[in-house]
């Protein structure tokens, strides 16, 4: 458990101790044990009992790593990027490193972590809009992409036009459009505002519209980023009901959020990411308690973030 800010996250320590440990940029071997398998989590233990646990998961990630090229940073800031590139002196930032977990059917799986922890990058990989630099993700079932509040909307277009665009992007059959639009109208209760440009919407209205669009197609795996934080109590209640109905229909729901009370209320399992690495996976109450302790400890150590950031940078 994390009582004080740790420079090396728990999994990193575990990985170093393990004989299977590999550099983060190397693909993980098939026998690599995910962090999740060793977590004190009933559903994980059950899954680990099978010959191939990933076979029973809707999403399983193993040794996942994503790195971005760093631009304009480093000791040679004065040098233009082209020269750095020609001299092969590019620096990298590991947004995710050695991330392993699995999400089962009928499960609402929440991901928590501070800003810059790597949550959004993880969602991009799951949505297949970003390919990893290490490890792999197996996704079993259809997935319409992930939804982040307000993103994807064309502000100059009306609510209806944005719905049509989103339904086409999510490959909804054209014959179903009318039915889906009725469903969205009923859920959002935006009425005449759906004819107005989305730029004129409040954050709550955008959240309602975004959530309704994301959930109307009922994908096998629903991925959302911070979508149900905005909005009033009535919306949050409706969103909760809809999420619960989706998980009941054998679907996996993956949500990234900062809203810890919501995690405790809706999550069946939680993964906490810090510095691009998995810190804990398991029971929501337990993981949230650890996370809160960590956040409190970090507040007392102003140099922690800089140390973690430095650890994530790979120099040539």
């Amino acid at each position, binding site marked *: 458990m994390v009582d004080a800010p740790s420079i090396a996250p728990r999994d990193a320590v575990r990985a170093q101790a393990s004989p299977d440990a590999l550099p983060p940029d190397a*693909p993980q071997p098939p026998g690599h044990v995910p962090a999740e398998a060793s977590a004190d989590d009933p559903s994980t233990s059950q899954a680990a009992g099978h010959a191939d646990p990933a076979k*029973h998961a809707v999403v399983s990630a193993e040794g996942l790593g994503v790195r971005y090229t760093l631009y304009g940073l480093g000791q040679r800031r004065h040098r233009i990027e082209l020269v750095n590139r020609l001299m092969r002196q590019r620096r990298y930032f590991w947004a995710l490193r050695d991330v392993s977990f699995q999400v089962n059917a009928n499960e609402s799986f929440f991901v928590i972590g501070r800003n810059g922890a790597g949550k959004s990058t993880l969602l991009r990989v*799951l949505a297949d*809009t*970003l390919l990893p630099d290490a490890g*792999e993700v197996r996704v079993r079932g259809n997935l319409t992409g992930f939804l982040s509040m307000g993103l994807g909307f064309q502000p100059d277009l009306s609510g209806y*036009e944005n719905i049509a665009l989103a339904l086409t992007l999510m490959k909804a059959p054209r014959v179903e459009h009318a039915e889906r639009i009725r469903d969205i109208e009923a859920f959002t209760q935006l009425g005449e505002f759906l004819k107005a440009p989305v730029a004129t919407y409040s954050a709550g209205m955008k959240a309602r519209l975004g959530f309704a669009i994301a959930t109307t197609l009922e994908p096998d795996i629903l991925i959302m980023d911070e979508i149900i934080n905005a909005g009033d109590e009535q919306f949050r209640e409706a969103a909760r009901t809809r999420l619960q109905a989706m998980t009941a229909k054998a679907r996996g729901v993956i949500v990234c959020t900062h809203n810890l009370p919501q995690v405790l209320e809706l999550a069946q399992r939680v993964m906490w990411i810090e510095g691009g690495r998995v810190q804990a996976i398991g029971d929501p109450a337990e993981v949230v308690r650890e996370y809160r302790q960590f956040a409190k400890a970090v507040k007392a150590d102003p140099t922690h973030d800089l140390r973690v950031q430095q650890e994530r940078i790979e120099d040539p």
Partner: protein
Amino acid sequence: MDAPLRIISVEEARRRQTFGHFVGYLAWLWKHLRLVETLSRTELKRTVAKSKLYYLWWMFDPLLDTACYAFLFLMFRPRTGTGEIDAPILIFLLAGIIPFRWTSSCCAAAAATWKRYANIIQQVRFPYLVLPGATFRTEGWLYLCALGVLLCATLAYGLWPTAAWLTLPLWLALHGLVTLALMLPIAVLSAFSSDFTRVVPYGLRLMFFATPILYTGDQLPVWARPVANLNPLAHVVNGYRAILLDGVAPDPVSATVLLAVSLVGLAAGAFWFVRSEPFIARSITRTTY
């Protein structure tokens, strides 16, 4: 569970660069053709969403553009080696400016595609080739409106339709192929280099003056004519002028060469685009991370 299994890994990036993937990609693209139409419709609405005159701007834009050049042209009336240009100046200018506008708008929009759609690209996976496709369609609609203005002006000047006008749709299709072939490499390079994106407007401006729009090919120095022949847009503009001003069909040899070069360019550009696609999202992410 009988749901399809998808594996997202490092190897997948390599697989997506093969020719086999390219063939499958084209089939995938076919299934997303409706997205081209939807995106194009939203782009069209967005272009006029905040203006009072709405769709009328699609005709005003080329007219105002031409009016500016016509003013300059009349002030400093150019002469050919043999004398003045004998065609009505306005039609001469419109037949150059309007087709060039289509190509240049498409190329400029191709360079800006990634910034405009970054939020969608990061959230949903779809064949990115629909994005230049949608831009091409949007600008194509605007071009058709402008072409209508050009045809009306041609008739107003007493240049009545000849049999050569029947070749206009074919010439339009060929012009479209040239434009698409130019758009794809610009889109790919813009995804990876913001420096290139900055160069595009200057390149288009240079292209404008290097194309015989404000002058005829005969006015170029002899040494420059073979170089000018390498410019595909010069042939495109000459073809429109042949049809509308001279009432004759475009030169078939020039048309055949243009068609062959455009098809090869388009195929190569599409393959390069598809090969680059796995890295485009990452390249865009770096700026938004």
